Structure formats: structure tokens, C-alpha cells
């Protein structure tokens, strides 16, 4: 049922041209270029970053060449102390592979021979004044985010008591109105209508608002309103981890809704599993308070207290069936 709210397939950037990386991140990473500009046409194809390792001794087996290679002080000193013949051989061997990019850290200079061969093999050699560890960390973080799977979802994302709650449901069902009500009560809007979701890490999803239009909402009858201008900085957020998915559905007679709260349903987005709550809409029902309670209940569960399970446990105790408690505690 939820499939219809998600776009078809996951989006993933496949490549990053070094020229784009260099021009956009030059300042942030304090980059300089040692090889010719045409080497910048090279493509980075994944988020992997590593030191060159044993390839510098000519050991080619298991050389993971599709990674961005960082040369630190150890590597540069090693190369500088090699006799010319060995240096040439090892550099040629290394550059015979399709390396996307080499970066020399700590403001050190790569050996001339390496720049020569890299130019010939069209491998870009960049430099950074940042320390090796720092650069490696920052670059990995940047590349992981760049290559992270992402998608767009038709829904609304709000920060309710610090919990990222994403509302899904058919057009016009009341997602925006619900979020507007939450904003009025002091919670924060991340985005309405279009949620840009990125998967960072194994099971973590982050929802982001559109940079230019993210503060707006559409309210039927009212049109488009600017939440930031109306309610102020405390009412908006540019990004939030998505922690609970709330699906608003029209109440239907024969649809079985979770009556006890023990089901702990989940849904999958971009391969990550999220708790799912289905809320039936009935005229007169206050969705806002229900939303707040969903967030609060989630926080309680994080603390280790599961209301429905606790209720059932006490019930079983009351009935003298204490021995069955462990069995049923899933």
C-alpha cells in the first residue's frame, strides 16, 4: 500500500568528475593541482578512500585501484628515498591501473616522476594542506554523502519533540494540515509535499527540505504559505533523521487496524527499516494530539518502555500466568 508514495527505484549518483570535486571543494579541502588540467576529467566511482599500501613495492595482487588514494608523509618519504630505477618501476606499475584520483596531504610535494607518469596516464594528482587523517576523514564523509542512495517522497516531515515523523498518505488527506497544526503547537516543519530522503549509514534515513522552497506548505483553500516568515526560526528545520513513518488512511470498515499496539509494524525505505504507524482518519478525530503521542511513545520505546507490552505483562500477571510472560515478550 505504501509503495505508491515512493518514486520508482532508488536514485544514486554513479560518478563524480574530479574537475567538479576540485572546483566545488577547493576551498573546503584546501586543494591544489599538480598534474595537468585534462587529468581532471577522471571519474571517482565510489566513496572508498585509502592509502596506496603495498602497490608502492610493486605488489599488485588485490590492489583496490578504484579508490581515491591518499599519499601521506610515510609514502612521500618512502618514495623520495627510493633509487631512481625502483621509483620509476613502482610508479609505472601503480599508474598502469585506472586510479580515479591521488591526493598528497600535509602540503607535501609528490615526486616529479609521479607527476610525469600520472599526466601520461591521465590520473589527477591533487594536493591538500590538511593533515592526512583529517583529510581522509573529511573526504570519506563527503564522498559517502555524495554517493548515498536517495529518493523523493510525497509526504510531510516534521520534528515532533525531537522525533522525525514523516507523514504519508493520499493527496488531500490532511498531511499538511496536520503538520501545520503541529507547527502551531511548537513543533518544527522540515518539509511539506516533497521530502528528499538520503540513506546515510546502515539503517539511518535523513529527510531534507528543498533549499529554496523548503519552508513552504500548501494548505487547501489557503494556497501556499511561508512557514518561516509566519512562525519564525523555531518552526523550521532544514533536515532531520526520519524515525517514525505515519500513514494516514481513510477509515474503512473492513480494514483491520492495529488495536493493541503490539504489532510494531515497520516499513522499508531505501533499504532501511522504519517503524510504521497507520492512523485511520475519522471526522472529528484530532490527528495532532495523536501525532504528538506517536512521537512520545517512540521516545518511551527508545528508553526501553513499551506501553502495550507492559500492559500485557501486567495483565498476564493479574491472570496468574506469569510463566508465559517471557514467551510472549516479542
Amino acid at each position, binding site marked *: 500500500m505504501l509503495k*505508491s*508514495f515512493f*518514486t*520508482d527505484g532508488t*536514485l544514486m549518483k554513479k560518478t563524480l568528475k574530479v574537475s567538479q570535486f576540485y572546483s566545488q571543494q577547493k576551498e573546503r579541502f584546501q586543494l591544489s593541482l599538480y598534474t595537468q588540467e585534462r587529468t581532471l576529467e577522471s571519474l571517482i566511482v565510489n566513496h572508498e578512500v585509502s592509502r596506496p599500501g603495498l602497490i608502492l613495492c610493486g605488489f599488485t595482487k588485490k590492489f583496490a585501484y578504484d579508490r581515491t588514494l591518499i599519499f601521506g608523509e610515510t609514502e612521500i618519504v618512502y618514495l623520495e628515498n627510493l633509487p631512481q630505477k625502483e621509483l620509476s618501476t613502482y610508479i609505472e606499475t601503480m599508474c598502469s591501473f585506472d586510479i580515479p584520483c591521488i591526493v598528497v596531504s600535509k602540503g607535501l610535494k609528490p615526486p616529479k616522476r609521479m607527476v610525469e607518469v600520472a599526466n601520461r596516464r591521465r590520473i589527477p594528482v591533487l594536493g591538500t594542506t590538511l593533515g592526512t587523517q583529517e583529510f581522509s576523514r573529511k573526504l570519506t564523509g563527503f564522498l559517502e554523502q555524495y554517493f548515498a542512495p536517495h529518493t*523523493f517522497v*510525497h509526504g510531510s516531515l516534521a520534528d515532533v519533540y525531537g522525533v522525525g515523523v514523516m507523514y504519508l498518505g493520499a*493527496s*488531500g488527506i490532511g498531511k499538511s494540515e496536520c503538520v501545520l497544526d503541529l507547527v502551531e503547537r511548537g513543533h518544527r516543519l522540515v518539509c*511539506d*509535499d*516533497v521530502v528528499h530522503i538520503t540513506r546515510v549509514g546502515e539503517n539511518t534515513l535523513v529527510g531534507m527540505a*528543498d533549499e529554496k*522552497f523548503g519552508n*513552504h*506548505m*500548501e494548505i487547501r483553500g489557503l494556497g*501556499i504559505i511561508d512557514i518561516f516568515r509566519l512562525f519564525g526560526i523555531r518552526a523550521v528545520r532544514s533536515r532531520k533523521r526520519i524515525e517514525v513513518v505515519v500513514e494516514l488512511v481513510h477509515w474503512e470498515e473492513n480494514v483491520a487496524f492495529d488495536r493493541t499496539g503490539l504489532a510494531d509494524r515497520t516499513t522499508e525505505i531505501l533499504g532501511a527499516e522504519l517503524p510504521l504507524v497507520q492512523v485511520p482518519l475519522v471526522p472529528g478525530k484530532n490527528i495532532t494530539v495523536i501525532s504528538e503521542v506517536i512521537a512520545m511513545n517512540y521516545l518511551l520505546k527508545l528508553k526501553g518502555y513499551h506501553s502495550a507490552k507492559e500492559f500485557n505483562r501486567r495483565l498476564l500477571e493479574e491472570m496468574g500466568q506469569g510463566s508465559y510472560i517471557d514467551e510472549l515478550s516479542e
Partner: protein
Amino acid sequence: MSAELKIQNKLGLHARPAAMLVQATNKFKSEILIKKNDMEVNAKSILGIMMLAAEHGSSLVLTVSGEDAEQALNAVTELFERKFDEAEEEENG
């Protein structure tokens, strides 16, 4: 069902044509999605449509699924071809 549509009106998919598009899509039961490059949005949401920032000449991909998919596809295609009645807009300026 899907179709590729081109924005022919000069001002692109701004508020007025977006509103026309949304009025049209909401008449149908089918799920209607519109995509520009990487970004795909629900065509029944005006905010989504406008966030595409589809300018004159840009190419959009329309994907429709549901019982009245064909009618929906035709209705939207017609709007694009009529350039969202931009000529009238200019006259009334």
C-alpha cells in the same frame, strides 16, 4: 503508462500553469508522477510541481498508473500542448 512532455510556454511551470495542472490531475483516480532529471514528484501536489522549477524547453517525464490512466495522460498532454493557455495570460497581463 508514461510519456515525455516538453514545456512549450515561455514562462515555464510557474504558479498559474502549475495550478492548472494540479486542478487537472486531481480529477483522476490514478497515481500521477512528474519527473524532471533526477527529481520525481506527485503531480497532484502544487508545491511539488513548482519545486521542479521546469523552465521553457525543459523535458519532463509523466508516469501514470491506475484505472483512468489513459484519460489522465491525455488530459495532461493536452494542457502542455495548449501551452497552458499562456497567450491569454499575456493578453490579460
